[in-house]
């Protein structure tokens, strides 16, 4: 947390550098979503110059979004912890290669998804020696239960699109880029997913 405070302080001290009206421009209504604008771009640029504290601040800003994406792929918290850690290390290693700072969220989401897929592939190749009960612990939050209940009703291919679209405010074009599928596919899955949820949950 101290790192976040450091950067908030710096931003406040540098009003001439960071216009107040552009700071923390929110693109989504709730407190957990990412804020875009000068602050975000500035942090990316600082991180690209090797500033670890800026990078950590950036990751903290995106942690909630990444957690939701990972949770729509993986059910085991230990696996989620691993992929988020690996994503953080990969992103820090390669952040200098990110050409457009404004696309950081799209970029890091794609990295996370690749790690999640790798994790799933690893699991498929493993021989299960002991079946672990698939009991989900909600950690005292009804939000988590609602989230899990909802995405469980969706086919795997649709889950992530729903989380990215409704939860994270990505546009269909951005989702298409992240998932490397056509925008039309994203739109049709959103449409079919909505119908499916209505039908399944009515029954």
């Amino acid at each position, binding site marked *: 947390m101290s790192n976040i405070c450091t950067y908030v302080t710096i931003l406040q001290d540098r009003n001439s550098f960071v216009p107040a009206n552009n700071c923390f421009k929110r693109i989504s209504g709730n407190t957990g979503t990412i804020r875009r604008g000068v602050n975000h771009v500035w942090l990316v640029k600082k991180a690209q110059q090797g500033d670890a504290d800026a990078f950590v601040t950036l990751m903290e800003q995106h942690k909630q979004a990444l957690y939701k994406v990972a949770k729509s792929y993986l059910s085991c918290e230990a696996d989620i912890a691993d992929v988020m850690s690996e994503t*953080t290390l990969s992103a820090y290693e390669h952040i200098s290669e990110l050409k457009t700072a404004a696309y950081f969220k799209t970029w890091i989401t794609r990295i996370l998804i690749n790690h999640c897929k790798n994790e799933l592939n690893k699991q498929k190749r493993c021989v299960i020696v002991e079946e672990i009960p698939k009991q989900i612990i909600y950690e005292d939050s009804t939000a988590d239960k609602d989230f899990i209940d909802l995405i469980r009703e969706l086919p795997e291919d649709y889950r992530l699109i729903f989380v990215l679209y409704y939860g994270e405010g990505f546009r269909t074009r951005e989702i298409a880029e992240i998932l490397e599928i056509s925008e039309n596919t994203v739109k049709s899955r959103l449409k079919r997913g909505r119908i499916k949820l209505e039908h399944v949950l009515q029954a």
Partner: protein
Amino acid sequence: MRYHEKDMEQILKKDLVISSEVEEKMQKTYRRIQNENKGNSQKVKTRWRKLTTAAAILALALTATAGTAAASYLSEHSEFLQGLFGNSTKESVGARQIPVGANDGSTVNVDAPAKEYIPVDEEKADQLIGGHITEEQTVVQLGEHTLTVENYVTDGNAALVYFTLERKGGVTALYGDADTNNGKGAYFTDDADFYFTFTDQNGDFAADNMYLDVEKSTSEKYYLYSYLVWTADEDTEVRPQLVIDRYPMSRGKFNSLSGKENEKANASIEREILALPDSGTVDMKKLEQDGEWICSYSPISMNINMLAFAENKELASDPYCIDSIELKFRDGSSYVLYEKDKIDNAGYTCGVGTEYRTAFNRIIDPDELSQIVINHERYAICK
């Protein structure tokens, strides 16, 4: 309960409670980054890069970790590499039975082998062949269709091509879907009034299989990936060219013509030959035993001397004399390229004379090979 759009939005937008396990791991990761960064940041970066490179080498050997390093590496040739070597546009399928048309018009079920696609490490792939992937597009207008050859790479034995075909109102000249992807590939329709193929500089055709990215493609734009095997007998450096035939009518109508009408129409086919950009040839390594050539291989393909495996010279012209091919790597992983009737992990295979030429459906690092196993004969590869 019924979910309305607004309910979904509210649920998916709510913050989740990040578990203590994830939180602790993230804090540990942050501390690692910050501690490493306290020293000479350049030194830290170098060390990490070395670690990543080591991981990439392992990943290239097509293990469970493949793709980890690639995840954050943004290749200029990403679409090419993913489409031809990765699993983001293709789904693995198990051994199964598929219906095929018999001569009497009925259908019979035949055994189709399993196909496995795996993630590609783009960074490592770029290291291996990136310098030989062409950058310059070749764009050709074919009536209302536009053909764009985006990239290709060749090692003289096989070639891999990424191209698109588009038409406002919908592509009509080519057909492809998930079934053709698992079969003989996309094909030209009877509505097409053109045909294109790839040849070497001498006009020798390449046998190929066109794979359609069914996720990314739209009705107006097809994204296609072609695995080609060169059919020239002689070992010469291949300089690929695009050969286009423009028909005076649709191919369906053309094929229905007979006699003089056919001859007349045949004479009016316009052929255009375009040299494709030259980006050199990926090196192949040669494996010999006791002076006999066994096979050659590169990151993208393999050429096997069937004379070394067939019972006699006559049978050496039959690709079915090869029962199995497996590439084993130094880290213990393996690539089962072919196992008769069971597994076919090749992009395309073709027998040319007494040579068995096959394009891989993934990229390999020849320097990481420890063994090549053909028809259960093991050949150790020294580093």
